[in-house]
């Protein structure tokens, strides 16, 4: 009894103080009027929200969306077999490889993004190698392109896809696979009907913690893409810092959160439907 109450209280208290309260403040701010002196002031108004319909912002949203979606899909395509292979290993080599995968990320993603520039640049590693091998005449334009941005985003977000998948796979009961094999299922059937559905929680978890942060990561696009695209993160930063229209910046943020919430809701509902069809029990989420 006491443990349960403690757990619930800690949960609610922390969230209320450091998440709910600040976001309510943001919501309130979005309803205020812009003010050059105090950043935001009375009276309350909806004017910030009406500005959202301008094409600039819709375009920024779609840019961010497609970029994040592409990144998530690529992370999934690479991460899924990678996690599967890792999970099949005995405990020690698996833990070792996982650690080795995380180690680069403790050397600061910003420095590594700069290092990527040295790989993709006109005098960078790839171009120098291709030139010296005689495969190309002039350097390829790899840097400051969408390719470079995806390269960088996947680079930073891959472990966030792999880790949840590995934990899910490691809990996968081998007996189920053997049973399927004994019953005559082909590898493809085993994959589609046994492995895939059971790995869904991991896939969802991984996709979420890749897609959502990717929507806000404008600095990779700035550094590797040449800052030629306007992403939502750029706009929000501009509104808060350069234009100092805090109500509008707040409105943009709230809208982004709400839209992401909707996407999330659709994804969860779709997944629930898949699971129900597959006969799996799905409760709390």
């Amino acid at each position: 009894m006491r443990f349960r109450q403690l757990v619930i209280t800690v949960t609610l208290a922390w969230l209320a103080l450091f998440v709910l309260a600040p976001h309510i403040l943001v919501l309130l701010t979005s309803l205020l009027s812009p003010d050059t002196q105090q950043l935001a002031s009375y009276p309350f108004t909806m004017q910030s929200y009406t500005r959202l319909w301008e094409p600039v912002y819709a375009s920024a949203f779609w840019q961010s969306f497609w970029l994040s979606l592409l990144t998530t899909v690529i992370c999934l395509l690479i991460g899924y077999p990678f996690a599967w292979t890792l999970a099949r290993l005995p405990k020690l080599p698996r833990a070792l490889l996982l650690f080795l995968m995380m180690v680069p990320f403790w050397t600061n993603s910003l420095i590594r993004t700069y290092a990527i520039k040295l790989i993709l640049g006109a005098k960078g590693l790839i171009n120098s190698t291709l030139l010296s091998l005689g495969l190309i005449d002039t350097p390829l334009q790899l840097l400051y392109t969408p390719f470079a941005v995806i390269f960088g985003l996947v680079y930073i977000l891959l472990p966030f896809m792999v880790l949840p998948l590995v934990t899910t796979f490691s809990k996968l009961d081998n007996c189920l696979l053997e049973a399927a094999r004994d019953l005559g299922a082909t590898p493809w059937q085993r994959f589609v009907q046994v492995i895939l559905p059971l790995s869904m929680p991991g896939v969802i978890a991984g996709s979420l913690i890749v897609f959502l942060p990717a929507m806000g990561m404008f600095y990779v696009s700035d550094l590797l893409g040449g800052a030629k695209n306007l992403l939502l993160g750029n706009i929000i930063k501009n509104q808060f810092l350069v234009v100092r229209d805090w109500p509008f910046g707040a409105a943009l943020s709230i809208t982004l959160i709400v839209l992401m919430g909707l996407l999330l809701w659709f994804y969860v509902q779709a997944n629930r439907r898949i699971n129900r069809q597959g006969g799996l029990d799905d409760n709390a989420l």
Partner: protein
Amino acid sequence: MITPFKWSLVGLVFVYLYLPIAILVINSFNESKYGFEWKGFSLRWYEKLWHNDALMQAFTNSLLIATLAATAATVIGTLMALAVYRYQFRMKKLATGLLFVVLMSPDIVLAITFLVIFIVLGIHLGFWSLLISHITFCLPFVVITVYAQLKGFDRNLLEAARDLGAGEWRSFRTIVLPLVMPAVIAGWLLSFTLSLDDVIISTFVTGPGFEILPIRVYSMVKIGVSPEVNVLATLLLALSLILVMIAALLGRVRRKW
């Protein structure tokens, strides 16, 4: 079965992950100030870093915050995941929603909301404000990871424990916790990484007395690729690899026992 195809995939992924690192390490020994050309082997940047007190201080501060934040976030986050998975309570949907709100809020928004709440609550900007904000943005990652593992959990085990008279805390400690350990560790690793890397939120909530590494690196690297940063990266890499080797050896020793 692990086919050669799967092994080559794993190998390729590691090459992809480590190539930029390799460049950093090589450049830390590069005489040239910029990394574009190799101008000779040199240890001068290592020397420079050794004398750079401010950078070393920032480095230590970052490690401290990252360790504390990761640990706290893992503890609180695991409890949260447990609460969402196991218990029914009135504001459950709200709690889950709030966790996702943190995940969905862009860094810059979180940064400003944190700053505002700290000012309102009168929390001094520095170590504590940094720690609290880091713990908060790491929480959803821990919760999602642990929750995903809890979902594959056999409820019958808990039922059996309760029938046998075990209290909540006991069944948590002896049954749930060992089984979700992989996810808890994964959550810690994720949080540690996130904390070490964070720039935008830290810029806003930290005070002048407490510089942390990502901010210093951010400034230095933007102005002109300061090579001491490459040295730091190399040292961090070496340190992490040593830790990994120690952990591996410990694992092997324990198994022998």
